Each structure stands twice: as C-alpha cells, then as structure tokens.
C-alpha cells in the first residue's frame, strides 16, 4: 500500500467513524436530546417531556406560509396515536396494529416496514393503539398489543430480540412508547379495564432481560398495601377483600426522567373495577398516582395520589412534565400536571411535595385540598352529573411546557359531565372489569342519549355535551392566561417551539398554528379527520418541518419557498 492510499484509507476510516458515532443514538445524546432540535429522539421530545422544540425557523410572522410537503398514508383504520421519532433525517413510527415504518423524513418515501405478527386472540381494551418507539444505538424498541417488547434493527427493520412483558390472556398489553434510560428500556402495561395488576418494568437494552419491576399495586408486606382495605363484615355485596390482585393501575403513556435526580416518573391509571369503587375499600394505591422511581433499581422514591379511591376512571396517565420554574419566588425543580380529574398540579419532583392544586375545568367531585394535597371528595347523589365526565378534563393527550413563555399548554374538555352508575362485576380473567353503567350528561331533559365517542366527521355530539379548548396556564400557579376555544372536543397533543408557535389539532380535523403568547390563530388547515397524536418538529437539510397525523394520514408541513 502506498503512503497516499494509506492516507486516503485513514481519512475514510475517520469519516466513517465520525459518521458512525454521529448515527449512534447514545445514552448521552438522549440526555441532551433537546439540544439537537433537528432530531426528535424521545416520545415527548426530551426527558423532561416538554414537547417543546428549540427550532425557530417557523415563527408567528411566517406561520401563514406553511404548506404541506408530503404525506404518508397508513393502510389500517383507527385512531392513529403514535408520535414519530426522527434521527438524522430518518423518521421511525408505528402504525396499527404493531408495524414499524422507517422513512425519509424529507420526502416520506419508505425504507422498510417491520410487521409484528400479533396473536389473533389478543385482548386490548380500547382499540389497537400504539403510541410509538424508543431508540438507543441503532436499535428501536416497540411494545406490542400482545404484551411483548421487541428490539428492532433501525437500519434493516429486522427483529433482534423479543421479550414477553406480561400475559396477554389476562388482558395485559403494551401500548405506550418505551422510554430508554441509560442501558435500560422502560415500559408499563395497559389493561386497566381487565383487572390487571399494573407495573412498570425495565429491560436490558442489549438482551431484553428484565432488570427491575415496580408493581403499581403493592402486594402484602409492601408499603401502601394497607390502602387496599379488608371488607367489613357488613360491607356491600361484591366487596372484595383481595381486590389488590386485580386492582388495575395500568401504565399506558410514556413517563419522564430527571438525569440529575436519577428518578423516572410514571403516571398510573385507574383502579379496577373502574366505577364500582365499593368493591375495593381504601385509597387503592398507587392507582391514579404519579410514582417516582429510582431509574437503576425501580425502587419507589415517592408518590402522590391525585384521586384516592377513584370511582370515575380518572386515569393519571398524563405525561409527567418536568419544569424548572419559580414558585413563590423560589426556583424549584417542579413537575406540572393537568390531570384527567380536572385539576392542575405543581409538585416538587425531588420529594413529591404538593405545592399547587387548582381546577382548570369545572370540577365537582372534590372541593378543597388539605395541606398535603389530599382532595376532600364530594360524591354527587345518584343520578346527578359529575364534572369532569368519564373521559376527563383532559386525558392522555400530550401537553406542552414552554420554558420560553413559562406557560403550560393542555387540551381540555370543558363543560363535560357524566352520570356515573357503578354496578357489581365479578373478576374473570381476560374479561372486561369495568363495573359500571355511565351516561353522558346532556342538559336537555329527557333527550335520547348522545352518539358514542367514536363518531365520524359530523359533530353530532355538539356543545350540548362538551366543547374543546387549548388552555394556557401559568406553570407555577395554574392561572389561565389564555384560552383557544373549539366547538368540538380535542384529543390532540400540543407542540410548542422556542419561536412561540403552538401546534395542535382536534377532532374537527383542523391543524392549527397558534401564537403561544397571546393565543391568537396564526394559520390553520383542514386535514379532514381527527388528529389524536402529538405533533413534533424536526429539521432536515436546514429546513424545519412539523408533523401531525390526521385520520390515516401523516402530514408534514414546512414553509413555502
């Protein structure tokens, strides 16, 4: 080999090495994910789950120049809830039921599709939902409806390993996007309507071997077990002294992580049975709670329960948003949270201390908090409406926090109530364990019932049942700064950018750009079908893009040239 060819080879190797390092999504890169805003490498954009992009090419002044750049259409119908990842120009996303697609983030052309073959007898509560992927190195991670965790090669789309997370025959599933922390992949399980015993578990990213598991329903001898009380002798029929065994506590939305505290935070779902709370006396920890876990061991550091002894299905699976804010003049490490139960909360994320609790929509299931943040519950008489209704003041839809405005943004259902009716239900493996007959409250006496939640493009639900809104709340007080009302309700997530543009959708099919400071509309386009995912932003070749999913279509927008 000549000296010249050796030099060329060295240069090639150096280039390849640097490219290789660049292409690898290291754990460090994930810690600093928000600092490379051209990429979207974690479900909520970064470990603090702010769904806030530092990209600033699209501004309030030029948002009117947004135009559709490309679309990708899925072949399977149903609510498409996924958040795509984008890494160095390649977009990775899931589509129903458990496919992974890799495509060119600039053009939408597909590199490969991986199809997980589901067990045809799989049991899932609420549709074949999947909310996305995690990535580490060159490996993608997906949870499946039949309760597996699969590692997939990001270049070839070939599976590397598959681990069974739980027993799907008993109603367990994995619908959330996993969260990678260091060398582990963390997931939670769905199935809160099937009497599961929920948990969060971490798996070794290389081998798929389980590293730790935290049960969201404590067992005998564990702290919190006494919140599952024994039935008094004269207790109501169907009271279950072993209710904890199928007490619910599902975890179906991705958690957050604070690298400095090494704590990972997860929202926990409803207790089982959902509505007939008499069957499970006690507070029913850790249902409807946030749990802070040591990221290395899964050991519980603290918890806060939003809705003790829930009788309304107020899952607390909202994304835990971590924000460093000033509270009463003091800088604090906070967690800010708009809960399905209609209250906005600020917690100290280091200790779990309750700092603020304030309704953001009409609430009548409780009226006050004690100093530790325990709500004083005001159960409504039988047949009377409870606000917020069964789907909540908000739900799993991703909120956003902008450090730039100091505001927390949430999709809310306003003036929405349900008349709850708990009925006894016997636990049977793999069978629905809801225990209730609820109906939407409609302030029209004697009128026939409303159409179901899963309706078509006609808003036959109307303002009589509820309306939607994007609310901008002061992150340290919960005070409403502005409100963008919608005629129909909204299940869309929210994205904000450092240039103060807020992107969101809704059931009406519009995709909006809203001024994040004032709440005024900057731009909108009608995509024609419900938007139920959280928008993201990324950059390829120096151009900023925004992606949202409407119906079967992934739509990507950029500025007109």
């Amino acid at each position, binding site marked *: 080999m000549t000296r010249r060819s050796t030099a060329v080879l060295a240069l090639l190797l150096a280039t390849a090495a640097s490219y290789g390092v660049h292409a690898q999504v290291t754990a460090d890169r994930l810690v600093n994910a928000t600092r490379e805003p051209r990429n979207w490498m974690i479900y909520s954009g970064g470990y603090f789950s702010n769904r806030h992009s530092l990209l600033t090419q699209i501004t309030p002044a030029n948002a009117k120049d947004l135009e559709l750049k490309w679309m990708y259409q899925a072949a399977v119908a149903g609510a498409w809830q996924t958040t795509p990842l984008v890494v160095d120009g390649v977009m990775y996303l899931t589509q129903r039921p458990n496919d992974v697609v890799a495509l060119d983030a600039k053009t939408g052309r597909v590199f490969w599709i991986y199809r997980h073959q589901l067990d045809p007898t799989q049991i899932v509560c609420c549709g074949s939902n999947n909310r996305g992927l995690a990535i580490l190195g060159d490996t993608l991670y997906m949870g499946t409806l039949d309760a597996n965790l699969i590692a997939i090669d990001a270049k070839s789309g070939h599976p590397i390993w598959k681990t069974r997370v739980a027993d799907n025959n008993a109603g367990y599933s994995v619908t959330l996007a996993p969260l990678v922390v260091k060398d582990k992949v963390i997931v939670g399980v769905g199935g809160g309507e099937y009497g599961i015993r929920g948990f969060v578990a971490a798996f070794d990213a290389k081998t798929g071997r389980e590293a730790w598991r935290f049960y969201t329903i404590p067992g005998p001898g564990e702290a919190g077990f006494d919140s599952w009380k024994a039935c008094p002798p004269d207790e109501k029929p169907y009271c279950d002294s072993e209710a904890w065994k199928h007490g619910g506590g599902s975890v179906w939305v991705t958690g957050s992580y604070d690298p400095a505290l090494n704590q990972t935070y997860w929202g926990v779902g409803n207790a089982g049975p959902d509505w007939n709370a008499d069957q499970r006396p006690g507070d029913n920890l850790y249902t409807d709670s946030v749990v802070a876990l040591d990221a290395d061991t899964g050991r519980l550091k603290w918890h806060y329960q939003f809705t003790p002894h829930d009788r309304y299905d107020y899952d607390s699976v909202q994304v835990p948003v971590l924000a460093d804010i000033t509270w009463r003049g003091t800088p604090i490490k906070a967690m800010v949270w708009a809960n399905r139960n209609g209250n906005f909360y600020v917690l100290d994320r280091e200790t779990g201390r309750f700092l603020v609790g304030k309704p953001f929509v009409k609430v009548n299931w409780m009226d006050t908090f004690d100093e530790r943040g325990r709500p004083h519950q005001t159960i409504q008489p039988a047949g009377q409406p409870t606000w917020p209704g069964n789907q909540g003041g908000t739900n799993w839809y991703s909120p956003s926090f902008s450090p730039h405005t100091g505001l927390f943004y949430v999709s809310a259902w306003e003036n929405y109530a349900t008349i709850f009716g708990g009925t006894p239900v016997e636990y049977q493996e793999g069978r629905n364990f809801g225990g209730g007959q609820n109906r939407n409250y409609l302030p029209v006496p004697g009128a026939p019932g409303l159409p179901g939640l899963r309706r078509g493009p006609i808003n*036959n639900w109307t303002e009589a*049942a509820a309306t939607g809104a994007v609310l901008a709340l002061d992150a340290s007080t919960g005070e409403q700064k502005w409100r963008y009302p*919608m005629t129909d309700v909204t299940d869309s997530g929210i994205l904000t950018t450092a240039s103060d543009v807020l992107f969101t959708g809704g059931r009406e099919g519009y995709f909006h750009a809203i001024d994040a400071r004032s709440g005024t509309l900057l731009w909108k386009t009608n995509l024609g079908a419900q938007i139920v995912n959280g928008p993201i932003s990324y950059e390829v070749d120096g151009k900023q893009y925004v992606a949202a999913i409407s119906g079967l279509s992934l739509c990507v927008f950029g500025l007109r040239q």
Partner: protein
Amino acid sequence: MGASTLLCAVLGLVLGTPIAAAAQSPGAAPTGDYSPADIAYGARIYDAQCTTCHGANGDGVGGVNLRSGTFRHAITDQDLTRVILGGIPGTGMQAFKFDPAEVGGVVAYLRNMNTIDRGTAKVGDEGRGRTLFEGKGGCTKCHRIGALGSRVAPDLSDIGALRSAGSLLRSITDPTSQMMPINRPVRAVLRDGKVVNGRRLNEDTYTVQLIDDQERLLSLDKSELREYKISTTSPMPSFKGTLSADELGDVVAYLLSLKGR
C-alpha cells in the same frame, strides 16, 4: 317472523309518569326509569317473540322466572341487551335480531313485568297513525318519509329503528325535550343583511353546515356573519291537546314501523 311485521300496533302511549324500575336485590338494581311507551312496545315484542319459550308469565323455561327481577346471566341492562342480542351458547336462548328501539323496549318490559297492568293499555294502529301523520297532523310539511314530505326537519324514514317508543311520544308532545342537539335551529345574518334560517347539520370552530328553510345546503364561515345564533327550542309545535291520546298512540305506532329497510 321478522321483527318489523310485529309492529303493526303498539299499546296506547298516554301515561305521563314513568314507571320506576322494579325493586332488585341490593346493589344489583338497574339504573334509571323506563317509559310506559317503551314498556308497552316491549310487551308487544315479548308477546310475539318470547312467549313461545318463556310463556306469557315469564316462567315457561324451567328454573327461569323472568318476573323475579333477577337474571342468572345479567345484572345490568347492558347485560340483558347482550343476552337478548347474542343469546346464551349451549342453551335454548337464541340470539335475536332487534334494533335499539326494540331491544330497549324488551328490556324495559322485562324490568317491569311484575308491575305493569296489561289490562289498562290500549293498542295504537299504524294505519290510522299514517293517515294522521300525512293529514290532520300536517307532519309532512316539515318531515320526510321515503319520497314524501319536506326536508326542512329531520327525515323520519328510519326513526322507528333509532328512537324508543317513549322518546317518540315525548317528541310529539314536548318536541324541545327530544331534539338532538345537532338538529338545533340556526339563525344567521350574512354580511349583506340577508337572514338565513335552517337546521344545523354539522358545526366546527370556524364553520357551520345547515339545510335552510328553502331546502338548500349551506356552509357558512362564522367569521363572515353579522349574527349567529343556535336556539335550544325546537321549531316543532307540541301536539299535546291537538291530537287525542288514542291518536298519539296511533302516530307513535306508525313511527315505530319506520325502520328504513
């Protein structure tokens, strides 16, 4: 026998107070009340479809007493509906093809078998109801059935499959109470001062779609309107007092026969 052939008549629908659900065992009581019209409609369907096995008194199947108020395979009304529509595998209980109005009626009847006084109920007549609908009632001035009548008010060609008997009776005597919110009347004043009156077909944050009183399909941009009002009062008159109790029963019988098939 097809369900639709049963519907030539229904019981008179003249009672104003719903019958409360029969007492059940603690914790297992069904929620809500049942309208007399639904119970009566359900009784007709029960007589035609269920008595072969269960008997007129509900005790025709050994070990099963439908009048007891408790059911082996059902606690809630949802359970009962599921059993009726899906049957019970491995038993003689077959699956029945009922529309929501029919199954709602049967459930209402089963919940009240023990208390209903069948002797006081009167039978409505579908044929007489149709004559009233198209004649004295003047209903086709606004409503349409098949190819007959106006499109200004909701089309009723399949209303018998969508609404319960009780809801239909209340629709005639107290229309506002039964108006689906999507059907609310819209009044809009355009920029040029032109007034549009119509029935809402769809609405979103920025636009509204309606059929106006000239049967035109209009889509309006709310930002371009001078005035925009949605009323919660139905423009339909009440027929309480205009039609006799018997006539109301006849019209409801006719409406229940409209299954859109």
